[in-house]
């Protein structure tokens, strides 16, 4: 029973979150071919999204490094890695915004088909999660600057890390199911 309240609470919450994304992924798979005659999975640009996915996955590494620095009480290095993590998150989000724009121009409109609705809502909710993660990272950055986060409070970095890794893992699933496998499934 040595787990801190807050950490246990975060684990419980993340358990719930897995089912949240599970629901949207299921709906997406169900509507893979319900394009109402419009644009389908062929619109995806796998090389482009692979790069932004790679950036997001690497941000998990910098998150671990931030937490590691904090456990050693090295707030300077912790801040550096936190900024790096947030920066990579922003690159990913920028990629998603760009991608949404391209898809929209190529005719994938949310209100056109169940497929489009399922795609935008699933990836959109993931984007919202990344955004909240960035907000938390920037917050802990500022709080550590003004002395609100102390060197011995590495649990706070760890909790943000838990959330951030969760968002990453979910993206691994979404990237596989939405971008990689459908090519095979529709063929």
């Amino acid at each position, binding site marked *: *029973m040595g787990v801190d*309240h807050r950490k246990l*609470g975060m684990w419980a919450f993340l358990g719930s979150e897995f*089912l949240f994304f599970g629901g949207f992924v299921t709906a997406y798979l169900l*509507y893979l071919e319900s394009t109402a005659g419009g644009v389908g999975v062929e619109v995806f640009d796998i090389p482009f999204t692979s790069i932004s996915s790679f950036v997001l996955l690497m941000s998990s590494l910098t998150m671990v490094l931030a937490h590691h620095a904090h456990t050693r009480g090295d707030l300077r290095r912790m801040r550096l890695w936190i900024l790096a993590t947030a920066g990579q998150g922003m690159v990913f989000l920028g990629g998603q915004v760009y991608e949404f724009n391209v898809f929209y121009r190529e005719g994938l409109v949310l209100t056109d088909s*169940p497929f489009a609705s399922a795609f935008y*809502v699933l990836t959109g909710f993931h984007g919202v999660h990344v955004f909240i993660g960035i907000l938390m990272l920037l917050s802990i950055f500022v709080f550590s600057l003004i002395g609100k986060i102390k060197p*011995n*409070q590495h649990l*706070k970095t760890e909790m943000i890390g838990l959330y951030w890794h969760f968002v990453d893992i979910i993206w691994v699933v979404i990237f596989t199911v939405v971008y990689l496998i459908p090519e095979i499934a529709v063929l």
Partner: protein
Amino acid sequence: MASSTVETKGFKGRPKGESGLSAWITTTDHKKIGIMYFVTVLVFFFLGGAESGVIRAQLAQAEMDLVTAEIYNQVFTMHGITMVFLVVMPLSAAFFNYLVPLMIGARDVAFPRLNAFSYWVYLFGGIFLYSSFFLGGAPSGGWTGYAPLASDAVSNMAFYAVGLNILGVSSLAAAVNFIVTILNMRAPGMTFMRMPVFVWMSLVTNFLLLFALPPIAVALFMLNADTVVGAQFFEPASGGDPILWQHLFWLFGHPEVYIMILPAMGIVSEILPTGSRKPLFGYAAVVFAGAAIGFIGFGVWAHHMFTSAIGPVARSAFALTTMFIAVPTGIKIFNWVFTMWGGKLRFHTPMLFSIGFVSMFTIGGLSGVTHAIVPHNAQQHDTYYVVAHFHYVLFGGALFGLIAGIYYWFPKVTGKLMDEKLGKVHFWTWLLGFNLTFGPMHMSGLLGQPRRTAVLPGELGGTVELYNLLSTLGVVVLIGSALVFLFNLIRSIKAGQAAGDDPWDARTLEWITPSPTPSHNFDAIPTVTHRDEFWHRKYAEDDAGKVVRVPAGASEDHDTDHEGEHIHMPDPSYWPLVQTLGVFPLGYGLVYLNFWLIGIGVLWMVIGLYGWIIEPLAEGDDDEPEDAHTPTGAAAAAH
């Protein structure tokens, strides 16, 4: 007993009110929050009851036009939403709040401010839903919100989608809170198999909430997108699948049934042993049956969809799992009966309501098993037989159990007993009114009366009409009975007989504390050595195996070497309330697709969250190593 110093308030930067309004709106005390849940539930119960009055008045005779079909649809939809989400679930939450920390020997929940947050979100979510009556009409697509009717503007379901999501946030936060509380904050010696059954059932219920809420959140977001933005999730015209809604809804909806019944089961599992002066028969069986219900509860949802296009294999599989889940439920019923068997029964009001629970719930359970039989189910689907069934489990079950709990713990909360004579009048009229209202629905349903019709069709004949008249008379009895209850409640608060600390000769830890419970709960955190700890402190067996009372002062609950112990209680806070007010702009923004309102709501809640984060903490920041701040006692001791 008053030798310990209790520092609850007074740290700079945190509110200090100890009485009056500000003490209530800033409170982080689990007991006050529990009372606030209870009072709010009474208001919503009145509204939901008034709606059922309109329904029964309209159906008293065939072909009546007391209200228009539009109004009728709004009223029966809001009746369902109110009773499920604004009455039974939060009434269970009221009991979790008041009792769980007391029963496990803790001073508060794991996250006191989050607990206040849950309450305010619930209150504002309810107000938000009801505001729809003044903003173009309440949702009218049924509480199950079946697409594609629900995604059509005619049924006004945007308020339903957003409102239930708001309430879901409240339940999710509470679920995380209580899971952590129960797992982490038990008093020393309180192992899992020594926990009171109510705590066990709370744990199972909150795990059910944790995993059942995401599917409905997904479904509601999709519905929200369909109704407000024009997404195509449930639009058959463009290839959308309305069955997807049914799957997602019932993947939540069936665990929800157990979310509503398990707390009541926990309550009667506390009252029946006390009223029978016997330990609960088969404690382990009751606990494991509860956990089994939790697991199997996620595998039976499609029995709500036997008449939808789900195919014969799915129908057979779900028919089997549905029959299977009757087994652990049956185990519990036998355990309750054998708890009473051979006991020295005392028929006080809580005991009467508990026995009412067991018997009425059994009737509802039996009609439930008939739903598992697929051909039979096809015959009953969308008839009043189903309405009869779920009212027997939710009204005859959950509500009877919860009312038993109100009578049972009222003395702990107020220090006064509720009037027994009025309590018995309440019980017998409640039982009569309930059976008169919902019993005939079995018959009228089997004779073909459909659900959700604004008018009782005259062609169903005089027998069905008679059954409906009986149901309406039953509601009149129930209204009278509810007034007796309300009168009893108010009069007992004002002038009830003093209860003392342990009026029922009870068995669990909350009765160690004085009545009403002081804000710090326990002067010293008890060390638990037995299941039914308090009973074992009061009674021992002599050489002949007879139960004898332990002489006063001999038991360890009277030790007073905690003089001068410094108890620290969580400080009150404005922030949960302030932050939660942001759900209004956010909610209306989502209903009317106004990005300004959404932006204001999100910004408001984020700023509120920062206020919450940077608020000073009297106990210092709690990231210090555990041993540096042991005043919360229970948490540290449990590690």
